[in-house]
């Protein structure tokens, strides 16, 4: 009786029709993908609108059913100073609250959350921003408090993320707005200057009106181009200037030179009456360059890459003072304070336990996946999560001196500022700038002593050599790669990280939570067989339980016994004891499932999960943590096809090492019992000794040092909005098995950029030949520039999309 559960059974959400992920909510005989869908379903049901679903016999629940969750922990929001610190705006009649809701994800969520004014009269308006997972609520502070709103959201299944870091995030980024305006002005000028410049190029047809029209067109050209040079092209000048000041060359320096050359020469030609100038090419150039910038500036609103320790420290603590609970801000705790920490809350600072015993989960700090039991007077480190009943602790250190923060401030954990793109673009900028200037001077000298001719050739070279097409190749290729990767679950922080991934030659994996999953494993059952009804009841109990191991059991039991639905089963009662197990009763059966002590009532510790029916011990389950589905073949392909060195580094013990020895080329690539500092040091030594480009793939704060030290740190998250440490890229856990395809994809991206460089070099050779020969007229530039830009854009977009299809093929396999 042994099978490996590789995926939970697929359930279709009864409301939105999405495939439910591992967090499927089972209710009666239907599944939901999220609380929002469930609530909407119930709401429709309550209003007799269920013809839509054609369901019969489901129980009717009200929103209150969900209130079994503990919501008293929001009591600290009654403290007006804390409540006001999270308000976006407030006066007597109106206040606005902006909250992050990590669990928002689908259309139904929008529907429900924008109906908040129907649920509470004090809420005037609510508006959800789906991409940023952010809700903005306008309410009347006289009728409803912040706490009530937060509790209402929690009841609906959307618990807001209230932490110091989430609060800071709310400062809105308006740079995108100004980018759009810059782009719009450049586009406007481009179109209009083209319209008035065109007659000037073919001035034969205008006849005797020529002179007056020429003046008007010249005036209009200057008028249109003014905002382009003064406003739209500012980002390039700013970057070029800062590069110039720090004496580092960047690609914006030749761009700015080109822009200034084309603009000043056009002004000169117009005022000297030589010709119509290049104003249309000028605005077109700025327009295309800005399109490249906007395309590159793809950001994922809902994701946060730069997490710091603020994200780990809770905003509020419950202090015990004279036997009364008092809510205080976490930043104000001092040594000697006595705090009450509830289930799932985080210990804010190093402390000792005052309660008799408690359960602590250190997985985020050390990577050790089994919760530990601690006894009175034990030191608990900051960042640990409490499991089970609330505990009392006495603070020993201020937050600023806690181990968590010390670890964060460790110099080992500071990222050295170096990026390949920076060096590539610096090198490129240097050579290109000097090359252009030298060529321009030589060409100019060649025409001496004809000063005007020499000057015009000099500026023509600067104009045409402006690396417009070249600079478009990088943002469009990398921007497109970012978009395509995001579709398959890999989110890059910015385009630089795409290049980093392409050049990686060593990959270090964390084990717990990265290669292994808390939701998959090999299950074995030893003991007496269950009857059909008992089995159904056990599955139902496992589905109701929130413990990850119960989920594994449920999906294993369903698969192994071929059970598709639990229709007709009614659980009379269900009670869960965190850290121990659960009791479910139905009809004549009472089932207890959990650790040995809980199930058998004997004071003895055993590792397995035991089960009893009507107080009779039947047997036990063993869950062995194995690697995720497809991981081992992915690692195989990394070493064989991509010639990458792979290592496994874990804070955990080597109890399951057997799974990995074959894939990781033997024992020396497997490192166990590693502290967070050891991990960072290992990567540092790889970088220094072997000059390796290291990618670190990890999930917890215990990896954060290694993630920062590595050339590219990829955080793996079960759910993209879930908690993860600071990193360069975020990967959804399901996509980890196509890591090799992603790396191949980024490598192809580099090839595409190189090919695009050659295309633009061909255009540049044509243009430079014309320029050096002194026959570069405005007509030629007006044709050459847009064509070369459009060719490069079309080529890079088309080729990178084509290369991205490989990932889709791999996903379908």
């Amino acid at each position, binding site marked *: 009786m042994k099978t490996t559960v590789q995926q939970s059974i697929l359930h279709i959400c009864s409301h939105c029709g999405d495939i439910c992920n591992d967090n499927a909510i089972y209710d009666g005989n239907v*599944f939901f993908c999220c609380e929002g869908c469930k609530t909407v379903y119930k709401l429709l049901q309550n209003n007799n609108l269920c*013809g*839509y679903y054609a369901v019969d016999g489901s129980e009717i629940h009200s929103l209150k059913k969900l209130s079994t969750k503990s919501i008293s922990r929001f009591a600290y929001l009654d403290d007006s100073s804390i409540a006001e610190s999270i308000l976006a705006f407030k006066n007597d009649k109106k206040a606005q609250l902006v909250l992050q809701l990590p669990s928002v994800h689908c259309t139904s969520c929008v529907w429900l959350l924008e109906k908040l004014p129907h649920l509470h009269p004090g809420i005037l308006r609510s508006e959800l921003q789906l991409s940023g997972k952010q809700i903005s609520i306008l309410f009347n502070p006289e009728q409803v408090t912040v706490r009530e709103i937060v509790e209402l959201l929690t009841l609906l299944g959307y618990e807001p993320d209230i932490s110091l870091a989430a609060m800071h995030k709310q400062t809105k980024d308006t740079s995108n707005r100004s980018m759009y305006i810059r782009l719009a002005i450049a586009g*406007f000028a481009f179109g209009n200057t083209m319209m008035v410049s065109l007659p000037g190029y073919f001035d034969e047809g205008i006849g005797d009106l020529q002179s007056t029209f020429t003046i008007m067109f010249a005036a209009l050209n200057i008028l249109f181009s003014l905002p382009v040079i003064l406003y739209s092209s500012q980002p390039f000048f700013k970057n070029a200037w800062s590069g110039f000041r720090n004496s580092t060359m960047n690609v914006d320096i030749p761009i700015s030179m080109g822009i200034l050359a084309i603009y000043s020469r056009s002004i000169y030609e117009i005022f000297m009456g030589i010709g119509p100038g290049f104003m249309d090419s000028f605005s077109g150039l700025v327009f295309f360059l800005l399109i490249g910038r906007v395309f590159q500036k793809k950001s994922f609103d809902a994701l946060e890459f730069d997490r710091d320790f603020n994200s780990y420290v809770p905003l509020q603590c419950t202090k015990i003072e004279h036997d009364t609970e008092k809510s205080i801000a976490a930043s104000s705790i001092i040594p000697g304070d006595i705090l009450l920490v509830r289930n799932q809350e985080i210990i804010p600072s190093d402390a000792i336990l005052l309660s008799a015993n408690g359960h602590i989960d250190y997985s985020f700090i050390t990577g050790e996946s089994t919760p530990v039991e601690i006894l009175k007077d034990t030191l608990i480190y900051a960042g640990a999560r409490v499991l089970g009943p609330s505990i009392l602790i006495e603070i020993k250190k201020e937050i600023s001196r806690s181990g968590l923060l010390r670890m964060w401030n460790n110099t080992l954990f500071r990222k050295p500022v170096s990026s390949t793109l920076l060096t590539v673009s610096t090198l490129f900028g240097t050579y290109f700038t000097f090359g252009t200037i030298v060529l321009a001077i030589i060409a100019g000298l060649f025409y001496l002593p004809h000063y005007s001719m020499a000057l015009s050739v000099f500026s023509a070279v600067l104009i045409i050599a402006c690396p417009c097409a070249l600079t478009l190749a990088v943002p469009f290729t990398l921007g497109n790669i970012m978009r395509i990767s995001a579709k398959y679950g890999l989110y890059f922080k910015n385009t630089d990280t795409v290049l980093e991934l392409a050049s990686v030659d060593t990959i270090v994996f964390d084990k717990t939570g990265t290669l292994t999953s808390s939701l998959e494993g090999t299950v074995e059952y030893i003991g007496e067989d269950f009857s059909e009804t008992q089995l159904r009841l056990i599955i139902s109990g496992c589905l109701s339980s929130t413990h990850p191991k119960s989920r594994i059991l449920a999906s294993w039991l369903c698969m192994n016994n071929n059970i598709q639905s639990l229709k007709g089963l009614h659980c009379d009662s269900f009670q869960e004891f965190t850290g121990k197990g659960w009791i479910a009763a139905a009809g004549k059966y009472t089932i207890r499932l959990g650790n040995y002590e809980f199930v058998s009532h004997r004071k003895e510790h055993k590792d397995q999960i035991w089960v009893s029916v009507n107080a009779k011990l039947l047997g036990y389950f063993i869950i062995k943590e194995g690697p995720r589905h497809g991981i081992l073949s992915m690692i195989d392909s990394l070493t064989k096809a991509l010639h990458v060195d792979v290592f496994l580094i874990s804070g955990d013990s080597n109890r399951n090492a057997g799974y990995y020895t074959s894939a990781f080329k033997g024992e020396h690539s497997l490192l166990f019992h590693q502290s967070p500092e050891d991990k960072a040091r290992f990567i540092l030594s790889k970088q220094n000794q072997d000059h390796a480009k290291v990618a670190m793939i990890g999930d917890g704060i215990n990896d954060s040092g290694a993630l920062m030290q590595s050339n590219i740190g990829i955080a793996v998250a079960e759910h993209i909005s879930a908690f993860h440490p600071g990193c360069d890229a975020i990967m959804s856990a399901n996509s980890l098995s196509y890591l090799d395809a992603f790396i191949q994809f980024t490598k192809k991206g580099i090839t595409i950029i190189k090919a695009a460089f050659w295309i633009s070099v061909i255009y540049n050779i044509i243009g430079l030949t014309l320029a050096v020969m002194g026959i570069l007229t405005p007509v030629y530039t007006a044709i050459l520039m847009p064509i070369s830009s459009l060719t490069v854009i079309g080529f890079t977009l088309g080729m990178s999309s084509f290369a991205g299809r490989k990932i889709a093929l791999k996903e379908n396999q």
Partner: protein
Amino acid sequence: MEVLYLTIGISVIIAGGFLIAFSWAVYNGQYDDRVTPSIRILFEDQAEIKKGSDDNQTPLS
């Protein structure tokens, strides 16, 4: 040909009008969120849901 002065003038004014309208829309926050409004517009009013849902039978899995 003098009519060109008029037509060019008008065309520039119209184009400028659109530029101003676009700037207003951007600063008004209409481009801050480009996902949710596309979903929001598809929600029917409360009364219409009742009518539409009865003849829209989706089988459960």
